[in-house]
């Protein structure tokens, strides 16, 4: 689709305003329905039995006692889920993750499931399932799993991306490499070099709503699935493929979603719920407990990263090198690859090389978490950059400005950048009053940059004009944080009508064409593109209808501010027709008026952010308190600035939690020890200050309004910004995240 990029000249009437969101009243009154808020007549309760072992062969599963318990309507094991993946390795992994086939690969791995008339019966039935395990050696740490003598998790994994192909299996599923120039030669020229190893622990997206769904499969093979998801079309595709169903026979409705951040881009229990319903012949509701969410959905990677950066005396970075090891859970992944692409993306580098290794561990299957893989790489790189700036004797902001990528720079991951915002965010930070505010005793300030690609992808939108002239917008990208408001603004903008005249809804999979998930910061970017296109198609029809009403050629009708206007000397005096008037006449001018759009929204604009963080460290306890925090990020164009700010603040808060306290803690037995919100410590209200935001708008030339994605970049800089602040406060370079009080105290006492 070609949309003229006229953003630079354009002024907006709706876009850029801050109206109340269309789903707001429902959400403050309790009317909004989330994953667990839906019930069907005759519904059963589904529950999943999970492995308590990190790595074990499943010798035998005896479900006979559970099946005989009165009230149990279906019992399921992997034997009920034949492999229909047809050699698709990624889908096979999803199948195996939904229900362990031969081996339990982590603490929490599903091994069996039941559907019963109520929760207590289901719980009792789980206890009656007898599983015979043969324990195998396990490994949960990314560095230990990377070692050549580590316990082998999957003997069919041979490292790809190396030449020659390895002759024995290992826990490293892939090596990837990016970069250009001659790093070794560059490094040899460097006057200053910083070389360090960093480590980050595994975190969880921590959405407050556990995974929940209601599945209903009829004896004719038609099925409905109500589910909280970031991508109901993708869930449909996965479930249909795993269960051998026709996609068109499975209607998936996305509920309101209580947070996802990447964790709801992947099916976990939904195929199991459908299979239970199919077996029982009744609807099945399956809601994960919080414990299950932590143990058996998809946390992010734990990482171990070596960074080496060299600079000339004048402050030019002459070479940059990084080796990144990312844990993937027990299946092959492509997480280090993304880390390797993003690591040095902020900088203009002559010689750069990044190498990523995907490492299998006995932990849950890694899933995306907001700009997946980028925050850890940024932590390592931005920490080293800060240290290098000190060695060179430059201010950290000036050092970054000197080396920042700009339009025409060859990105460290390959292509040449168009207009980008890293320089402007750095300049804004340099001039921000936050940077000049005085610091007290035991306080430190840190700043850091971050990058994320943003995506587009397949998108489909319908814009239907009612007989009263109001507009229904049916969107297929799940609204995770206010996009219905943004898309209504866009529709209002294009049609030239008031925001209140548009209502956006998320359509189910049977009502709209395929849409990719709301991931990669693509929701507002791609659906606004589709909405603009749908609106323009509707305007074309509106003009035709107005022409009919006036009985003049359509070429003589233009669309201005919500009205058809007749032009030319002959018709110039005709009174303009409002959208409402044209809609009212639709029945006599050719029927309903609608605009449709089916696109691949290409051309997403990369985005950059720079954050500033002030920290106070208690030198006696290692407690770190965030005193002040500022986010500066390029939005391209902020469609609904309040929700853009919300994305900036939310990403920063998640990053601060990651930096300071959040981590998966495994025991020597390979079991997760903190599968709850008490000991997996996401920040509470009293842990944080207000989070200041500054929205920059460097238009994306590939979007008609200049929109880039805004959802993810904000989580990229905080790990590094907080680490730089702590390091400056305590005078010791922090190399391990989270910087929990025991780690800070140990660093101080070392």
């Amino acid at each position, binding site marked *: 689709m070609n949309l003229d990029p006229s953003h630079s000249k354009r002024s907006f009437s709706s876009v850029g305003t801050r109206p109340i969101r269309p789903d707001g009243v429902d959400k403050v009154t309790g009317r909004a329905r989330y994953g667990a808020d839906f019930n069907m007549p005759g519904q059963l309760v589904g529950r999943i039995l999970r492995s308590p072992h990190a790595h074990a062969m499943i010798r035998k599963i005896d479900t006979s006692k559970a099946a005989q318990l009165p009230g149990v309507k279906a019992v399921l094991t992997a034997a009920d889920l034949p492999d229909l993946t047809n050699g698709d390795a990624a889908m096979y992994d999803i199948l195996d993750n939904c229900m362990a086939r031969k081996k339990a690969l982590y603490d929490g791995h599903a091994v069996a499931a039941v559907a019963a008339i109520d929760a207590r019966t289901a719980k009792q039935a789980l206890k009656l399932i007898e599983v015979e395990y043969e324990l195998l050696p396990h490994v949960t740490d990314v560095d230990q799993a990377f070692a050549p003598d580590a316990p082998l998790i999957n003997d069919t994994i041979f490292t790809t991306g190396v030449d020659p192909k390895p002759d024995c299996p290992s826990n490293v599923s892939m090596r990837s490499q990016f970069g250009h120039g001659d790093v070794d030669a560059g490094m040899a020229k460097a006057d200053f070099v910083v070389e360090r190893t960093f480590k980050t622990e595994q975190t969880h997206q921590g959405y407050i709503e556990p995974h929940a769904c209601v599945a209903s499969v009829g004896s004719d093979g038609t099925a409905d699935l109500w589910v909280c998801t970031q991508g109901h079309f993708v869930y449909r595709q996965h479930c249909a493929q795993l269960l051998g169903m026709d996609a068109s026979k499975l209607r998936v409705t996305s509920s309101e979603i209580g947070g996802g951040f990447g964790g709801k881009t992947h099916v976990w229990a939904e195929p199991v719920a459908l299979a239970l319903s199919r077996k029982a012949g009744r609807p099945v509701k399956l809601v994960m407990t919080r414990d299950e969410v932590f143990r058996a959905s998809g946390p992010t990677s734990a990482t171990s990263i070596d960074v080496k950066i060299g600079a000339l005396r004048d402050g030019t970075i002459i070479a940059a090198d990084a080796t990144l090891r990312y844990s993937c859970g027990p299946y092959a992944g*492509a997480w280090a690859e993304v880390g390797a692409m993003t690591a040095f993306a902020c900088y203009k580098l002559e010689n750069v090389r990044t190498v990523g290794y995907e490492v299998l561990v006995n932990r849950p299957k890694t899933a995306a978490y907001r700009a997946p893989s980028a925050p850890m790489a940024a932590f390592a790189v931005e920490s080293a950059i800060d240290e290098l700036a000190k060695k060179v004797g430059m201010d950290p902001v000036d050092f970054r400005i000197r080396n920042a990528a700009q339009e025409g720079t060859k990105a460290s991951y390959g292509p040449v*950048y168009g207009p980008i915002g890293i320089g402007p965010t750095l300049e804004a930070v340099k001039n921000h009053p936050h940077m000049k505010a005085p610091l007290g005793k035991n306080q430190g300030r840190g700043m850091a940059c971050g990058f994320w690609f943003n995506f587009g992808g397949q998108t489909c939108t319908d814009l239907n004009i009612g007989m009263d002239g109001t507009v229904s917008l049916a969107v297929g990208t799940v609204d995770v944080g206010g996009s219905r408001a943004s898309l209504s603004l866009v529709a209002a903008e294009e049609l030239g009508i008031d925001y209140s005249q548009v209502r956006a809804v998320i359509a189910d999979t049977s009502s709209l064409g395929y849409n990719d998930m709301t991931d990669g910061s693509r929701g507002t970017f791609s659906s606004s593109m589709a909405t603009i296109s749908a609106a323009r198609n509707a305007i074309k029809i509106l003009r035709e209808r107005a022409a009919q009403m006036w009985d003049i050629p359509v070429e003589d009708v233009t669309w201005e501010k919500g009205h058809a206007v007749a032009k030319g000397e002959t018709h110039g005096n005709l009174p303009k027709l409002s959208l409402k008037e044209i809609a009212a006449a639709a029945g006599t001018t050719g029927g309903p008026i609608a605009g449709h759009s089916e696109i691949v929204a290409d051309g997403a604009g990369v985005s950059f952010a720079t954050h500033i963080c002030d920290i106070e460290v208690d030198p006696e306890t290692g407690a770190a308190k965030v005193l002040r925090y500022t986010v500066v990020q390029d939005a391209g164009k902020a469609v609904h600035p309040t929700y853009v700010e919300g994305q900036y603040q939310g990403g920063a808060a998640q990053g601060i939690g990651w930096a300071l306290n959040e981590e998966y803690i495994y025991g020597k037995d390979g079991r997760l020890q903190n599968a709850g919100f008490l000991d997996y410590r996401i920040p509470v209200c009293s842990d944080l200050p207000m989070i200041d935001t500054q929205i920059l708008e460097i238009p994306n030339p590939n979007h008609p309004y200049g929109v880039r994605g805004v959802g993810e970049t904000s989580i990229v800089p905080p790990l590094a910004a907080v680490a730089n602040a702590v390091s400056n406060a305590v005078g010791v370079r922090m190399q391990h995240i989270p910087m929990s009080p025991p780690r800070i105290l140990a660093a101080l006492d070392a």
Partner: protein
Amino acid sequence: MVEVTLWGSLATAAGGNSKVEIEAKDIRELFKRLSECFPGLEPLMDRGIAVAIDGTIYRDTWSKELPTGAEIYLLPRLAGG
């Protein structure tokens, strides 16, 4: 004829060539020629490849034209959060 740059891993699979000259007018032809010339690329291409044309990342939209003289860069297709 367009010059196509392959990211590190793809170059390894293409026998160490990081830049290849390909006769292709659009993405469809590009992918076809690439898999003919370098059968080793197939598994990586199956996983999904994105094409950056003058810095703008496109997915595998077959009809997307490759302008002469444009910078064509192949990248892995990404996941987001």
